[in-house]
Every structure is written in structure tokens, then in C-alpha cells.
């Protein structure tokens, strides 16, 4: 057999290089391929890998296995005379990978070792229109171990930096520069860019780097707003009115209720401001709840069941497990229902109140009044219960 055979692999884009590296090349630098010549195991093969920048890298290899391709009768094209080769690319060393990576990163065309690591802040990118830009994230090294090392080093470096240095901008940078710096960073490190690798460790590193970038971005934006150099920190995503649970309705029920709540909390004094760690949590909840409860009772005593209901609803957001509060809420709701003449609804509310808290005397008392044969209970009778 005359001399070593040469195979030529041409990659026109860096993605193809990456695909070649990650998909075609198996562990142990093994490359399987179909070739139009016969080769015996042990024979030497040379692989010429042509990169997108026309640099050809010569990689030495040794044939490990060779078997003729079975001709598939169904396939139209003839595979006769072709051979499956399994080649070990012994010449595909870490140095070669590193060299390719440097070239992919836009380094010098020869791929010789660069004098210093590339700075983390590439020049600001002009607003592109038309074509989708190639993200630097796509140019991360294909090799997992290299990528891991690179991200770890990057993380160590970034952790030690001040926020503006993280984004690679000046201390007094404006909103646009900060945004550019942040965009460049997340284009390099966003975890989505490495999600396809399915490597938890790399994903984690990418997430950590993104967290640092996002935090730097948020802090600089907050600082800009504080200095009055920007209008708002970021987008305000709010649900359509009425969608979300928790706070909006309580705050929108008007300043009167809010000030009442504030009074409650202050006059309740003992509850929220007191050091909670000195007590078991349950008692803390009960005491805080009492402040609300008293306030609601006063309202109920004044015949203002609607506001009492709102106060209790608010209180239940803070102390969701307080049984007295919950049962009182149902009592208030029952009184409101009675005010509208809805006896059935009121009865069920009172029963619910008792179900939540058996000792709820008011609920039992009003139920008793309801069972009275002729006259429905008057509001005076009910307000008296709370005085």
C-alpha cells in the first residue's frame, strides 16, 4: 500500500467545526467514516481539517477498524467498494483544540498562542438590522472540559470585579452603554446557550455568570434612576386588574382603609414590632392577629361589617392560619349578608365560622337569633354582641 492516505474535511462555518468536534468525533478521538478506498487496521491516515478561515490543520490518525460496507439492495446508489473506517486521531491534541478555539474566537489567523487572554468586554455592538447576529456564545469552545475550565476561570475573575467592571463599562456610563455591556455579557454566558450540551456543571457555571451580569446590570440601573439619569429601572409586568391574588385589591380599596390598617398595626403596638425570636412563632401569630381582631370588633360594634370584612381579609393574608380571625371574617360576612336580607347565605357563613373555630361565641349567638321563629335579628342586636 502506497504511503498514508489523506482525507479532507472542509468546514465552511465555525458551527460546522463545532458539529464535527462534538457530534462526529466520539470519545477517545475516534472518527467513523465511509471512504472509497480500502485500508488495513494499523495503517496511517492523515486528516486535513480545513477551517472557515482557510487554515488547514493536519491531524495524524491511525486506522483501528475497517470493514467493507454491505451493499443495500434497496439503496439506489452503489456503496460497493467503500469501506467503514474507524480512525483514532492521535494528532488531535488539546493544543490543536486550543488553537482552533483561538481562531474561532477571532484571534490571529495563524492560531498561535495569543499574548494575553481576550478582555471580557468586546467593543459595543452596533444596533444591527436585518440579519440575525451571530452570538459570541456560539463561539464557546466545543470541548466540555475546556469550556468548563474557561467558565470557571471567568467566574473567578468576574466575582472579584466591581459592578461596572463586570459589564466592562466606565463608572459613569450611561444607560445605553450599560445595556450594551450587559447584552454582550449575556450573549456570551446565558445558560440557554449551553442548554443543548445537557451538562449540569456547565449549565450551573453559565447561570452563575449570568446572575453576576444581571445583578451588575440591575444595580447600575438602580443607581442611574437614583441619580435621575434614567426614568425607570425596568419593565413593569402587571396582571390585568383582578387577576392576581395578594395585595392589589387591599391597597386599592382606598386610602381610608389603608390608614385604618396602619393605625391598627400601630395601636396594636405589641404585635409586629416586637422581637419575634424571643417567642414561639404561634404566639407571635396569635398576638398580631389580635390587633386586627380588635379593630374588626370595634367596626362590627359600630355596625360597619363591610369594612370589618376587609380588615379581616387583609389580616388573613398575614396570619392565614389564625382560626379566630377566620371565623370572625365569616361572622362579618354573615352580618353583611343579613343586612341584604340573605338569610340562607348568612346561615351557611355562620356555620362555616363555627367549623373553623368552635368557640366563636358570636357566630353561635347570631345563629341562635336566626333560629328564633318570627323576627329576623335586628342590626342593633348584633352590634350589641361586639360591645
Amino acid at each position, binding site marked *: 500500500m502506497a504511503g498514508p492516505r489523506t482525507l479532507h474535511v472542509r468546514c465552511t462555518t465555525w458551527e460546522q467545526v463545532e458539529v464535527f468536534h462534538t457530534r462526529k468525533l466520539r470519545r477517545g478521538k475516534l472518527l467513523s467514516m465511509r471512504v472509497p478506498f480500502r485500508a488495513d487496521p494499523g495503517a496511517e491516515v492523515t486528516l486535513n481539517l480545513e477551517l472557515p478561515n482557510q487554515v488547514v490543520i493536519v491531524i495524524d490518525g491511525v486506522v483501528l477498524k475497517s470493514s467493507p460496507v454491505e451493499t443495500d439492495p434497496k439503496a439506489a446508489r452503489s456503496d460497493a467498494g467503500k469501506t467503514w473506517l474507524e480512525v483514532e486521531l492521535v494528532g488531535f491534541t488539546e493544543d490543536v483544540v486550543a488553537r482552533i478555539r483561538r481562531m474561532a474566537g477571532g484571534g490571529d489567523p495563524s492560531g498561535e498562542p495569543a499574548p494575553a487572554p481576550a478582555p471580557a468586554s468586546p467593543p459595543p*455592538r452596533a*444596533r*444591527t*438590522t*436585518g440579519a*440575525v*447576529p*451571530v*452570538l459570541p456564545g456560539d463561539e464557546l469552545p466545543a470541548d466540555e472540559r475546556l469550556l468548563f475550565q474557561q467558565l470557571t476561570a471567568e467566574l473567578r475573575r468576574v466575582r472579584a470585579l466591581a459592578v461596572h467592571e463586570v459589564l466592562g463599562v466606565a463608572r459613569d456610563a450611561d444607560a445605553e452603554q450599560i445595556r450594551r455591556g*450587559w*447584552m454582550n455579557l*449575556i*450573549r456570551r454566558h*446565558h*445558560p*440557554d*446557550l449551553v*442548554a*443543548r450540551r*445537557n451538562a449540569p456543571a456547565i449549565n450551573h457555571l453559565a*447561570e452563575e455568570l*449570568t*446572575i453576576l451580569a*444581571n*445583578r451588575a*446590570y*440591575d444595580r447600575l440601573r438602580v443607581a442611574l434612576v437614583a441619580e435621575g439619569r434614567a426614568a*425607570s429601572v*425596568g*419593565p*413593569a*409586568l*402587571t*396582571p*390585568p*386588574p*383582578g*387577576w*392576581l*391574588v*395578594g395585595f392589589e*385589591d*387591599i*391597597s386599592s380599596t382606598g386610602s381610608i382603609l389603608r390608614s385604618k*390598617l396602619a393605625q391598627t*398595626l400601630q395601636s396594636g403596638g405589641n404585635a*409586629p*414590632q416586637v*422581637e*419575634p*425570636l*424571643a417567642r414561639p*412563632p404561634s404566639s407571635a401569630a396569635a398576638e398580631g392577629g389580635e390587633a386586627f381582631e380588635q379593630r374588626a370588633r370595634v367596626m362590627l360594634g359600630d355596625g360597619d361589617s363591610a369594612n370589618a370584612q*376587609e380588615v379581616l*381579609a387583609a*389580616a388573613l*393574608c*398575614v396570619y*392565614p*392560619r389564625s382560626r379566630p380571625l377566620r371565623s370572625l371574617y365569616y361572622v362579618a360576612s354573615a352580618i353583611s349578608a343579613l343586612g341584604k336580607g340573605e338569610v340562607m347565605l348568612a346561615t351557611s357563613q355562620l356555620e362555616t365560622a363555627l367549623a373553623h373555630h368552635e368557640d366563636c361565641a358570636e357566630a353561635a349567638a347570631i345563629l341562635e337569633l336566626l333560629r328564633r321563629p318570627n323576627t329576623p335579628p335586628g342590626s342593633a342586636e348584633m352590634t350589641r354582641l361586639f360591645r
Partner: protein
Amino acid sequence: MSRAVGIDLGTSNSVVAVIDKDGAPRILTTPEGATTLPSLVWFSPDGPVVGELARAGLDYSPDLTIFGAKRLLGRRFDHPDIRRLSRVLPFELVEAPNGDTWIALSAGRSVSPEEVCALILREIRRMAEDHYGEPVTRAVITIPAWYDAAQRQATKDAAQIAGLTVLRLLSEPTAASLGHGAHRGADRRYLVCDLGGGTFDVAAVDVEAGIFEVLATTGDAFLGGDDVDRVVVDNLVRDVRSSRGFDITSDTVAVERLRLAAQTTKHELSDVAVSKVYVPELVQLPSGRAVEYHKPLRRDELEQWSASLIRRIEAPIKEALKRCGRKREDIEEVLLVGGMTRMPAVRREIARVTGREPHVIPNPEEVVAVGAALEVARLDGTIEGVLLIDVAARGLAVSMGGDCEQVIAQSSVVPTREHRVFGTRHDDQLRIEFDVWEGESADPAQNRHLGRYAVLDLPPAPAGDVLVLVEMTIDTDGTVRFGASELVSGERLQLEQLYHAGLARTEVLRLQRQFEEASS
């Protein structure tokens, strides 16, 4: 790796999409051949029924047929909204032990909204497995952009119960722009108007150099195709009374039949100017004879009836523009999403309010699901050059009994992390408890309680000597996780959840097993 799908889990309809081998998106069909699966679950005597078949439940047992479970996901029972909602819903809402909203089934049993959504997702999973002929265990699920952490977690839990790993929770406006192909075009400022079955959502989305960012969201939580149906049915019921002389208001079966017929007619009237409502058997007379109902309906009649609803489109659009500080001239493209945007009157109104002709997508019902499927492809690395940026819809705060202290600000870009240091307050203190809230107020009453946590097994030391660093991370999906360590030694400390919103992990796992057994 197993197959993954993109799911638009809607308030009234759900859609599932996959990317074919040739890169083209494909909408999967239900066993009945429809491209949308009604988000309906009927807890029938023979077990839960999902989708189109569950519509029968609306006739037989409206109290056991759950719709709009998405509205209830991750919400507190005390909230006035839920109180209002519980008055109008035909099924009963109850309070779960941890204060969440659950649904009472009349059999003395209650289910969480997560389980209801999981039943829908399981049906979707079956559709996908029928299509592929192999297991499907991963999905991208779309959610409203303003979903808070509790709602996001609830969505994830629902998926887990259904046996699906969530690759990413994707915001609906982003998904719509992605499905529309915004990643292939030039930089644009989009306004996404999504008018579906139950809700109207408006979002301003910026696409700049391959980075998608949602800038503002608003909407109307109770405006959609169902409301138009209701108006039409009300008018038809009135017509039945005047033309036939009997009142069917209280006859739920007849009203439901009328609603289905009216819905079909409404769809037809988007393409033609005149159609008719036809119900072969509206009611049965005491003699046993069936009464047929037949009424021609013109498009302008429909538009007149729904005019007051369509007028409600204007305010949210203006509000969305105001919130992101834009004038309507700044918007470069208006995207129409959701089946209701097929209605010519809706398109006219949106064109009038935004001052530009909206972009008409051939498949407004499906574009969000297509976006979700493209997201699957993006995470797999098939689509490059696109990054989707999400922000925390709500700030995160902690308290130790008193006022809330903001830890992570609203609209922080996620993923993000912040920490707080807590010190012991008395000698040999063994544990530190703290509450976590979602919201921006210092007053706990105005925030949403996410949970109460305890740092356990502190080393014995004089007061103030043990410092605990609590880290809060909001991940790329917008869900929250916690970690605690001793500040000085850096040693990991155990963190216990004393109370938290949503289902407990053990409960999710138990339900997941239960679902697996039910399917096999």
C-alpha cells in the same frame, strides 16, 4: 433524549405544537381532530374527562366541570378576587390548609388547581405520544408574562404531576413573537394583542439584536370569546322568549346547547356576513315533542351585541403604551393572537386604537404554541442567535415578624440572586425563622406570603455570634429557591419549610405517582 413539546396552556383552550424533522412547526390534534383542546375537566362518575368530551359535563354536572383552572393556580383563597369569582362560578371553591384556593367536588373531595391543570397536561402528553409513538417527558409551557413566583411554581408542579419536566416557562407574548418569526426578521418593537377565550392580554415586546424583552403587560382578565358567547346567548334567550313564548333561562341544558350553536355561528360570521343559529332539539315539551330553534343571524347584529365588549379593548392597549413610555407611533408592528382576533370588528377596533393595520397571522390560536415549540428547538440548539430575557414580575422581600425588607427588586432580570444576613438574637439560639413575601410594600398585609422558613441546627454560641447568610435565587423560569449557610465558616445549614404557598414537594410526588398508576 426523549421527545419534547411546546404547550400553550390557556385559560379556556390549550394548544400543543412540535417541530417536525424538516423544521416546520406542526400543531397536534386531539382525538376528535381539533387543533385546540378546551381546558375543561369534568370529574365524571367514571373518572376525569378532559377536553371536548368534558363539555358534556357542563350539561350534566356543571358543579363538577372545572374550567379556567389557570385563573386559580397559585392564588390565595382570602383574596377578594377569589371571593368575587367564587360567587359566579358554578363549582365551589374551598380553602386548602395552607390558604390556597382549591376546588370542592361534591363527592366531599377537593382537588387543587394544579391537579386539574395536570389532567389537561396529561391529555396533551397523550396527544404528543400518539403523534410520536414514543414517550414524551419534556415540555416548554407558556404562562402570562406577569405570573408571580407562586403561580410559576404551581405551573411547574402541575407539569411534574403530569410527568412532564419543564424545560422552560415561556411568557406568552414572547412565545407569540417567536412563533410569528420575530427572531428571523429585523429589530422591531412589537405590540402583542392576545384576545382569547377568557382573557385579553396586551404586551409590548422589543426584539433587539436577537434579544427578546417584554416591556409592559396589561389586559382585561374578564374579556374574551366566552363573554361574546354569553352576550349572544342572552340575546338568543330573549329571542326564544319573544318568538316561542317560553323562558329557558333556568334550563341549563338548553342554554348550553344554544351556546354551542351560537359559538359555531360566531366563528362562521368572521368569514361570511350572514349565517344562522340552529339547535335541532332546544327543549322537550311535556308531550315529549322536541322543539327546534332556528334563527338567521347577521354579522352586524353580532357586532352590535358585542359592541360594548369590543370597546373594552381600547383601555388596556393605551395603558400598555403608557407603561413602557411609548407613543402609538413608536410601535412598529401589531401582532394579533388568539381566536377572537379573527373577528373583523375586533381587528377594526385594534387598528383604530393603535393607528396601524395589525399584522394578520393565519393561525392566531396556535402561534403561542408554535413559539413554545420553537423554544424547545432553541434550547436544543437548533435555532441560534436568539435570547429571551425575563424579569421578576414581583419583588421578593423577607421579614422576621416586623416590616418586610426588599431583597430582590421588581423587574430584576432573572436569573438573579441576593442574600440577607440574619444574626441570632439570644444565647444558644438553635433556629432562626423568617417569612418570605412577594411584593414591594414594607407592610406585610399588602404582600403575598410565599412561605415561612426556619434555619435549623445552629451551633450554640452567644447572641449575635452566629450569622446566617440566606441566599434567594430566582432562576431562569422565575421560580424561587433558597439556600442558607453560616457566614463565617461557609458551612451549609439546613433549611426547613414551615409553611409555604402551593403544593408540598411530597404531595407533588405522591400525585405524580398516582397519575402514573392511573395512566398505566
